């Protein structure tokens, strides 16, 4: 009896907590998104009296000359390209750092750590971008996202590469494998679980990034999805129904991603966690 209670009680508790933490906010979001403006302004958890899903959806989509559509395209390019570069670059750096001991290792490790510790400054970064002609361009922002995410990814990869036996590299080299081929054909495929972790964590992070696009990519044509939230919210006037509809729309992509990659994330996290 008590064991059954223990087993099911704990499960039920976990489910209840999940509902409170995840489902209720989601339901609140969805309900507010279909209300009309006056009802939404109350910000209460109630069943809408009228359903305005289509109207709200159209309003959000067409606001500021279909800014949301541009924003989705921009955000998709930004996320896909940044994450791709991040994965390849971070894996390469981590591999070299882990496998080749030299006196530069200390310096490189220090730089990677400082990337995590030192907060980025906006104005000097803009100067650098301006001097390279990259300011206000998507490639400029991609480089910024890569730079800010690199430290974290390198550390994840390093921890995992430490668990791959060095003999594998040696065997490949003896068989006549060059460094590039060794990396792409032997090491890179082995990193699969960490790669998925990095992809998921970083793409959610970059997709949801607000600060960097705000400062480094100004202009309506360059908007990313998080910036579209500002179309409906301001100090004196806020259309909560449209705001929540917008939130709902831009929450869907990361949500789907989590659903698909959920299992792999946990595997990837634990794979890199035990060895350092």
């Amino acid at each position, binding site marked *: 009896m008590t064991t059954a209670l223990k087993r099911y009680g704990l499960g039920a508790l976990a489910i209840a907590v999940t509902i409170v933490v995840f489902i209720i906010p989601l339901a609140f979001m969805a309900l507010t998104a279909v209300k009309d403006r006056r009802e939404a302004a*109350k910000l209460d958890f109630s069943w809408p009296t009228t359903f305005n899903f289509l109207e709200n959806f159209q309003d959000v989509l067409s606001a500021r000359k279909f800014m949301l559509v541009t924003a989705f395209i921009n955000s998709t390019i930004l996320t896909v*390209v940044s994450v791709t570069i991040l994965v390849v670059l971070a894996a390469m750096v981590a591999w070299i750092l882990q496998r080749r001991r030299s006196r530069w290792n200390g310096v490189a490790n220090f730089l990677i750590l400082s990337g995590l510790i030192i907060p980025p400054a906006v104005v000097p970064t803009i100067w650098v971008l301006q001097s390279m002609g990259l300011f206000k*361009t998507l490639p400029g922002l991609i480089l910024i996202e890569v730079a800010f995410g690199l430290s974290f990814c390198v550390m994840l990869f390093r921890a995992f590469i430490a668990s791959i036996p060095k003999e594998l590299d040696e065997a490949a080299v003896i068989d006549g494998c060059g460094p590039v081929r060794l990396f792409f054909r032997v090491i890179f495929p082995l990193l699969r679980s960490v790669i998925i972790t990095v992809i998921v964590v970083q793409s959610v992070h970059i997709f949801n990034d607000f600060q960097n696009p705000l400062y480094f990519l100004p202009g309506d044509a360059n908007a990313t999805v998080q910036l579209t939230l500002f179309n409906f919210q301001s100090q004196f006037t806020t*259309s909560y129904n449209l705001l929540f509809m917008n939130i709902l729309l831009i929450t869907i992509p990361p949500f789907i991603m989590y659903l698909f990659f959920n299992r792999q994330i946990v595997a990837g996290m634990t794979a890199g966690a035990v060895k350092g």
Partner: protein
Amino acid sequence: MTTSNRRRWTSLAVGVTALAVALTGCGGGNASGGGGGEKTITWLVDNTENTVTYAEQIAKDFTAANPTIKVEVETRPQGGEGDNIVKTRLSTGDMADLFSYNSGSLFHQISPEQNLVPVTSEPYMANVSDSFKPVVTAGKEIYGVPVGTGNAGAVLYNKKVYEKLGLSVPKTWSEFLANSRKIKEAGTDPIIQTYQTTWTSQLFVLGDFANVAKADPDFAANYTANKAKYATDPAAVKGFEHLEEAAKAGLFNKDYASATYAQGLEKLANGEGAQYPILSFALPELKVTFPDKLNDIGLFPLPGDDASKNALTVWLPGGVYIPKSTKNLDEAKKLQAFIASKAGCDSQTKAVGANGPYLVKGCDLPEDVPAAVKDMLPYFEDQSKNSPALEYLSPVKGPALEQITVEVGSGIRSAKDAAALYDEDVKKQAKQLNLPGWN
């Protein structure tokens, strides 16, 4: 590991790298649109629904009048984030051709002399109201034209509730309290306070400034010079005292601590609450959310002690400025001239209706303005019946006022104590601005 798996990963890696290179290569700028004598200028405005709507209407009407110039409206957030954007873009030389920004003390913080193009001698400055010019002046030069309407920090009240109880608009603080008590007896919340949205708590102090200025015309100058203090000036401390008095008398709505600005407006519109000390910037929100109730809402200034000196605290509109970095100076000036003309006001009225008086000469308000705007007009027309808010007259404004007034309104801190604490709070800022008399 099978061969096919390996091959797939390799091709994936090669593919994405190629894609990355292609994308980074082709993203270059296409900033200015085409030839044929047509030019596009950009105008950065804040993202309020109201602002964006009228800015786009102005852009459209301006292009209709000047077919060779197109105006692109860009938006930025408000508040601290917006200040940072404006400062960042100015200091990196990347500002739009024109931008809207606050007048008064915030205007001085963007180093106008260093960053902006002076427009003192432009012919269109003759259209700008003289009461606006001082708040966009730095040194000897004027830098901006007004956009949007004047606003007030005052009490919005529900006329239906007043009518039902046979009350008249209070001219003094004691009348205001008497009215409030009657409203409470009738079962309606007399004064709406919404402390979850902290800025709304400051109105008792900020909106009371016209009374301070009428009682002591030199207060602003003395305050800037560190000679007058909120805690020691008998007129200035009144704002804090009134807030404390109202709180002690239990005249607030029960949920004042957790209510939000949006909920406050709803209470006011539905008549659950009778009086809401707030900025008249709330009128556009009332207009879109409660269009049928808009004309139930009236406005009166926060009353002081002397009925004959009852005056309205005025918030002047923001300015439109041209940064020195612009490459389209002539076109930008043309747009400025358009904004500072009757045609400019008319486009704004067409887009969002008039939410207050314009600060451009010759701009009349239409007949069908909201009741609260009508209540505002007599005070605006007579200089002796209004005063700009302190933030337009003195650069000294502490960051913690809203927290302090929340404490007073919640009964945690006494008025005297709060005024003294606020005086401490402004010290840091005055020292940062390096004002004479503070070090």
